[in-house]
């Protein structure tokens, strides 16, 4: 009760409701929040006329060039991959550091490169 009073007091004069889109206060309005992904996928399923430009249709194309390999640690061009951690490295000094790296750091580097999934 007390909180409602405060909210009413806080309502700026130019608004019709203190919080129009607050899901808790609006009993009659059912608004389920949708993420962008959901919005896009539901948009895709509709029968749009030919040539309509949708959010999902202007995505950049995939890269046609082979990705270069860079060392995860330094960013230098990497010639080698450590089979144990799957980290890329450029020289033996970096390899020596890789051997000492704790698991969470190696996992962090892999996740940064987007290579943490088992399949990829």
């Amino acid at each position, binding site marked *: 009760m007390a909180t409602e009073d405060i909210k009413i007091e806080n309502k700026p*004069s130019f608004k019709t409701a203190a919080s129009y889109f607050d*899901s808790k206060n609006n009993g009659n309005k059912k*608004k389920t*929040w949708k993420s962008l992904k959901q919005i896009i996928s539901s948009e895709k399923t*509709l029968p749009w006329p030919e040539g309509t430009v949708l*959010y999902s249709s202007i*995505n*950049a*194309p*995939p890269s046609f060039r082979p990705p270069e390999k860079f060392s995860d640690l330094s960013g230098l061009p990497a010639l080698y991959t450590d089979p144990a951690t799957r980290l890329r490295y450029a020289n033996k000094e970096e390899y020596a550091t890789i051997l000492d790296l704790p698991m969470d750091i190696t996992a962090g580097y892999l996740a940064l490169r987007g290579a943490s999934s088992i399949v990829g």
Partner: protein
Amino acid sequence: MDLLEFKDQKPEPDMFHSYTPLRNSTTPIIIDNGSYQCRVGWATNSEPLFVFKNLVAKLRKERYKKDNVESSQVPLLQVGNDIINIEAVRFQLKSQFDKNIVTHFEAQEQLFDYTFSHLGIDTETIAHPIVLTEAFANPNSSRQYMSELLFECYNVPGISYGIDSLFGRYYTEPEQENALIVSLGHHTCHIIPVLEHRAVFENVRRLNTGGQHIITFLHKILQLKYPAHSTSITLSRAEELLHSICEVTLNYKEELMRWLDSDYYEQNIKKIQLPYANTVTSSLTLEQQKERKKELARRLTEINARKREERLAEDEDKLTQLLHIQEMFEVGVVGEELENALAEFQIKNSNDLQKNIGNLNMRIVKTKMKIKSAKFAEEAEEPPVKQPKTNKMVFETEKDMNEYLQNAKKMVSCCDYYKNFNNFFFSQRQEILNRKTLRKQRKQDMAKRRTAAGQERMRIISQLARKEKGNDDFGLRDEDWDIYKTISKDGGDTDSDAENEKLVALDETIREYEPNELEEVNPGETYQLHVGIERYRAPELLFKPYMSGSSEAGLSEVIAYVLSLFKPSDQLLLAANVIIIGSLSSLRGLKERLLSDLISVRPFQSKVSVTVAKSPGLTAWLGAKKWTEHPEFEKKLLTREMYDEFGPEYFLMQPFSNLYCKTPNGQTIDVEAV
């Protein structure tokens, strides 16, 4: 090389502007609603009145502070520039944006409240038309909610939606018919071809990498490089670094090759000092710790002594009582008094009584002894403490060496001794370290299958496991058992505690006499970030999204792709006028890089030009302002009547807006039944 420091700039809270000059007018309000910043101003202003980050921080009401007066003064909802320290509320931050699309209208509403109240509006409704920017190909459902919010909640008279990049072009180059807009945003980048003042919608492409990705990428690599400082490397600091030292390089590969040279590295590395509190050196704290321990021990002994004395008094008291009973026995008192006394001590007969008295006597004697010995111990404990602890680690010749050392320090001529002494320590230290690394190496080799050591181990194990009937004499000799030592993973010996202790002690002595030899760095240096290749690596993400696992093409590749969608004559027109807008375009070297990449994909000697818009972050707002001055503006306003008539997703198209496509089948996404 001078040290850089973080400025950690705090935003200044926006002031509440006065509404008076514009009261009762219909001056449009221009809101450039970007996923990074929101820029707001009246159409009569020459530039936005205020700019704030599109963020809301909803602080949790802490339960224990519920009744506290102070807590009620701190607003639970902080919006935009009211958020003084973003890092403190990082986990409570909310934005209305999901990528570059507004999906979270609760937050949008709070931000609109902030916007309108800071404009000073205090009337019943917002009596001004709104010009609002939105993303390219903004989904109908998002726009529909936006219209609903503005019409139903704020009662605005009219709305005009436009695309920020198109407004930006309108402001920068209104007279140019054709352009290729490269709009670099916080979450996304757009490549928008414009022919004869019209955006070619079907050939627009969006790259889902933006400034925010660069910042998080930089943040992450620095955190992984300096795990010890991961908490002091914050996102806002990464952002600051991006703007202060990051650059786009013309040729990334060549730049990397340059960094292989250690001289180049030394010259170009940027050192950044993290704030740190100068802590007291470790030796002092060690002393203090010892002191504290001693103090604690003393207090404990005191407590024990007091307890003992108390027990002693108690026992003596009991003894006198028992003696009294004994006396009564002896005198031959019979009656209630005796009975009571016996019951109290749970004594059945005189034998029991004797035993009890004996026990008590014994106990008293023991306690007295203990008290005495404790007192002695306390006295005895004092003297050995005076000896310095370092002497514990004694080489037999240490005392002599100490003397040598003193002499050496006084007289340079005695340098030899000193050197010998040092060498002795260093060689010992090195020996231990070598042994340690050797062990580590062996352990690693053993753990892996394909090393010689590992295979040898497997061979021995399989031999041991083989069962041979008959002449098995294993174990007859003691040496047989040593084989188990060789196959254990740490090869029989581990880093023993004794060795570790010795190493620590050696370090200590060396540090004492030769402070410079061990890398005893000044404490500030461990709080420095060395940012080298990262300066170029982070912005390179725009051109190589695969560095963070995205499969999309890079910026230059997408530009080339968009151009390839046109016929050659149009390609010429577009490539001749490439404009970069968006706040990210202030990155150094970006223009040159785009130009060089573009030239490499264009036909020989064809005209290519790349320009960066002036004040690239504000172009969208300024373009929108220019639109309000256009004669068509009034006609292209979406009014409340149209909203009621044509449904919430309807809007009027204008040269800078998205295309209106009615959602098919008459079914609108998520229209609630009233």
